[in-house]
């Protein structure tokens, strides 16, 4: 196996000897590439954003991620571009020139990260030049404390398209670097599922990482160290997606990949993505990782609970299928056994006909929910024949609101039913007081979720 290395701004850089806990940010800065900055070390501020070439059909896509979260060794064989690789002070990249001229930098500390997030959107295939062509969500994961964002927004909207010979645009036309298997002290990227399962059997204490958006935070903020790390995000068996019958989503697909592949196929999930963390996180975080980490708050779990999803768990002894509703057993605990991996998420079809996702947080985008409510109904001839409601943020695990479901099923879909069910919903879970919200507010938000949905979608007066 060749020594691990990563290509940074076109230059190969050896990774050998890099400690397992060293993240991409510290690795780059150690190379003297100090453009990427540490602002928070937990993927919240985007000051460390860099672009990675990721597969996209026959070609690849420059995909921005938070460098602070990803272990450097996980980039073996890959290509990275930093703000320094976009342009130089003498020859600014169009994104950099736009930011500079608009007054988009004040202290400049967050700026290289903004430049990378913006450049990735700049290179998005099919993006139209002009004010509406730039998807502002692309910079939702970058914080700026100085400008108030207006000049950054205007610089983004003013961007044209890449020139014909733009090397980074051209790079997207050819495939992403082939996935290489990595095996160094303390870190492995197995080539296939069988090897992964064998490694997990060999290293029962191993930490399994995909996008590392959760493990990276543990390592950076809480100083947790892994005796062995197994990277599963490129396992081909975990990266399938099919929509013919039940929707089956490979566990190692990033949330961005799932979002792109599904489009509007599953409307409830389409409602979740824009509210789920930031693009920088969604480009790294995988659907399997999001469920395996078993956060009681996660936004995806309530939606998948409402969709009656099941998980396919793979182990040396074969696959088993577990209902998501039975997957979570306690605070950050699941039925996953040692040596077992989530292989795929299955959403049964037909899909429920009416769905909604309600997220309550202090900030509109890129915040952790105080409360998340996902509801899915089948209404036939004015009667609720089936109701599934998933909740986040109101118990030690994501939760089905079973009493509320019972209060809905078999009832006419009317305001009276909504009112009655809302009173039940307000009593679901065991919400607590914390820094995000009071228990009383959480309960009130549960109680108002269905009311608000009713009012927005069915109330005559409001729909004018």
């Amino acid at each position, binding site marked *: 196996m060749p020594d691990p290395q990563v290509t940074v701004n076109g230059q190969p850089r050896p990774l050998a000897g890099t400690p397992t806990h060293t993240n991409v940010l510290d690795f780059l800065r150690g190379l003297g590439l100090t453009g990427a900055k540490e602002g928070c070390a*937990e993927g919240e501020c985007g000051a460390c954003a860099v672009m990675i070439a990721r597969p996209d059909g026959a070609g690849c896509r420059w995909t921005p991620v938070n460098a602070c979260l990803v272990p450097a060794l996980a980039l073996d064989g890959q290509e990275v571009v930093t703000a320094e690789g976009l342009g130089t002070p003498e020859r*600014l990249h169009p994104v950099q020139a736009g930011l*500079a001229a608009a007054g988009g930098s004040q*202290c400049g500390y*967050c700026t290289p990260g903004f430049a990378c997030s913006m450049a990735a959107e700049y290179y998005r295939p099919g993006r139209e030049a002009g004010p509406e062509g730039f998807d502002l969500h692309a910079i939702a994961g970058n914080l700026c404390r100085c400008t*108030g*964002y207006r000049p950054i927004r205007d610089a983004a909207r003013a961007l044209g398209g890449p020139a014909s010979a733009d090397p980074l645009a051209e790079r997207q036309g050819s495939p992403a670097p082939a996935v290489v298997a990595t095996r160094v002290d303390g870190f492995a990227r197995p080539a296939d599922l069988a090897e992964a399962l064998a490694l997990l059997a060999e290293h029962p204490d191993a930490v399994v990482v995909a996008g590392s958006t959760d493990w990276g935070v543990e390592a950076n903020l809480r100083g947790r160290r892994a005796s062995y790390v197994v990277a599963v995000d490129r396992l081909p068996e975990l990266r399938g997606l099919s929509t013919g019958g039940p929707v089956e989503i490979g566990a190692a697909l990033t949330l961005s990949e799932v979002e792109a592949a599904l489009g509007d196929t599953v409307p409830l999930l389409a409602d979740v993505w824009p509210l789920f963390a930031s693009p920088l996180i969604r480009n790294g975080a995988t659907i399997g990782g999001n469920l395996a980490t078993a956060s009681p708050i996660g936004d995806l779990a309530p939606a998948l609970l409402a969709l009656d999803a099941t998980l396919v768990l793979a182990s040396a002894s074969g696959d088993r299928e577990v209902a998501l509703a039975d997957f979570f057993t306690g605070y950050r605990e699941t039925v996953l056994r040692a040596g077992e991996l989530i292989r795929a998420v299955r959403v049964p079809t037909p899909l429920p006909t009416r769905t909604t996702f309600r997220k309550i947080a202090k900030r509109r985008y890129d915040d952790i929910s105080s409360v998340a409510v996902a509801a899915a109904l089948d209404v036939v001839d004015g009667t609720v024949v089936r109701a599934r409601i998933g909740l986040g943020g109101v118990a030690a695990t994501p939760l089905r609101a079973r009493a509320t479901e019972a209060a809905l099923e078999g009832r006419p879909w009317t305001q009276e039913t909504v009112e009655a069910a809302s009173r039940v919903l307000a009593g679901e879970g065991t919400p607590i007081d914390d820094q995000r919200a009071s228990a009383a507010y959480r309960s009130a938000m549960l109680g108002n979720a269905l009311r608000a949905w009713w009012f927005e979608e069915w109330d005559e007066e409001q729909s004018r």
Partner: protein
Amino acid sequence: MSRLSERPDDAVVGLALPHESAALHVTGHALYTDDLVHRTPHVLHAHPVCSPHPHARVTRVDAAPALAVPGVVRVLTADDVPGVNDAGVKHDEPLFPDVVMFVGHAVCWVLGDTLEAARRGAAAVEVDYEPLPAIVSLAEAIDAEHFQGGRPVVARGDVQAGLAGAAHVFSGVTEMAGQEHFYLETHASLALVDEGGQVFVQSSTQHPSETQEIVAHVLGLDSHHVTVQCLRMGGGFGGKEMQPHGFAAVAALGAVLTGRPVRLRLSRTHDMTMTGKRHGFHAQWRVGFDDDGRLTALEATLTSDGGWSLDLSEPVLARALCHVDNAYWIPHVLLHGRVARTHKTSQTAFRGFGGPQGMLVVEDILGRCAPLLGIDAVDLRRRNFYVDGQATPYGQVVRHPERLVAAWEQVLASGDVVRRRAEVAAFNAAHPHRKRGLAVTPVKFGISFNFTAFNQAGALVHVYKDGSVLINHGGTEMGQGLHTKMLQVAATTLGVPLAKVRVAPTRTDKVPNTSATAASSSTDLNGGAVKDACEQVLARLREVDAGRGLAWEELVREAYFSRVQLWAAGFYRTEGIHWDSTRMSGHPFKYFAYGVAAAEVEVDGFTGAHRTRRVDVVHDVGDSLSPLVDLGQVEGGFVQGVGWLTMEDLRWDETDGPGRGRLTTQSASTYKLPSLGELPDEFNVALLERAHEDGAVYGSKAVGEPPLMLAFAVREALREAVAAFGPDGVSVELASPATPEAVFWAAERARAAVPGHLRGGVVEGLPGAVPDRPDPAAPALHPRSEQAAHAAGEA
């Protein structure tokens, strides 16, 4: 027009230029203190050992286990300090404490070959604590009368007579939370021992001279042994005015003791748990109005949450007291100030420096009392504006009050406020579950350090033989564009193209005895000094030129060969200001900066979530030195203010549990700043025109802090929107910050409220009924109408 403010025709000041480092910023080439670590060999990394207790005696520190950790080189403790074990200017901040005063207080620091080694070493240090009782909340401190520092009083007239003669008297409490600076770059220092024992510290500091002084006194050295340099900061906002000194001193101490460079950079969590923030305030007030809604008297006690040490709490309090009036004439005033001592981080400077907290008190009063008076809040504010000749409660005549009126009228017109308020009313009538509000608020903010001595600055200007110009000045660059403006000032004064001038990093060995880059005054002060230095050189060059009109390069070359000095040290001090801090009176401010904002918000009644639909601002920066920079300051300050008032929610564990005193919002995932989504959908900012400020550098005005307080418009608009959920005339109490949860509870209270406002001079009913749900987050804030209480037969 003064010579200082006179502007030549072909001035480089006044041009809209990007930040002078913009090309470096966007490419990642701009260097910050911690970037230098990667260019410095053999660096040691420092990691703190932090107290888990809010208040405890340290009974034992055993560093031996840390020294057994591979890569650990040294553990710094109090025994290592050759000079004074103190990091503050008030001598109340031991660098290595024997009594820890807050959760996170560093007991000692571990130096390692790698940060990983230092971190593991810090975890291995054994510390024994004897826990002591802790006061964590401001309320606890007030109850226990646990105060520190002076108790200033601002007084004018006879407040009791003013209240007695008022047609309407209300009393109430206003509370507001603090704010975390959350500069994107955390505190960082890199220290090394230079030739001959000279200590060189690179620090992310707004106040290099004071960092130098503290490092020197910790090391037991004279100031001339220590040089502090600040390349630039990744944001400061006041958080790096006093707080960097101790960290720089630890790095310097480590460098002296080990002979190796020492890097100290705080993680975000360490930065948030170890360093001071904006002061939260509690204010208790009684206010009087006449029948026309004119303020007659205000009596208030403002108590700030100072945290464990004094730091800048006294001057912050002074500025708060000097800004309670904001833009309003109040004939009779009696304001008491106190600083609570709590077992928390030592609260410190933050953009506005107490001004925002003082002003929020009167804006809260007006917002709450307007419905009780039956007067529209926009009218109520406008009719209380200062007019020419009136003076502030501390005795300074308010110059140019007509500028505030001009800005106000311009905002009303450009923001189409009258028509849009009608639209808002129509929208609210049609939408039971979504409400909008539109409010207009003014800002009047005093410019200069209250403390007169700080209003001085120096500069060093070199003209080299080839005609290129290098300037040094005492101010630091933290993103605010000071260096950009100084380049423009130098180019304008010398009459050379901007490209001829370069600005060098701020260093204490270039310009000594500088004031903090703070109080919005750095352009006024350093601009004056740069201009002075340039004028000295220019005067000599003019003599050489003798009217021949030589080209710049030729003139410079000839001057050199004529043995004419081509460099100069410049100096500036603000004239005409004085302040008596014992009587809290005088003329502390060179001038006032004015601004007006109109904001329209929409509130979701189901959740309390809100967004800002449109903001219109007219702000007075005098004749702008650098319009793009000034625009950036106005917009950025506004959004930062909106963060303070509506989103940023510092929470401390005030329970009696094991986490008591702990900051529970200590990371970016729990403490939320405004993101792009909080940018108003429509954001129109104009600089007030024809606003030349006589006696200030090239006719400009300060801009750093005042725009933050324009964000009051958003808070007041939220109050209006919340009121629309209730009956007409409801007085809305809004917690600060007005998070979605706080707004939701306020809306619940409004819905449950009994209508009541003044008719024919009689107060009917009491506003703000108790919500039908418990609201643990919201303090009891009901304004109390004394007339109503009297009518109800209460004492």
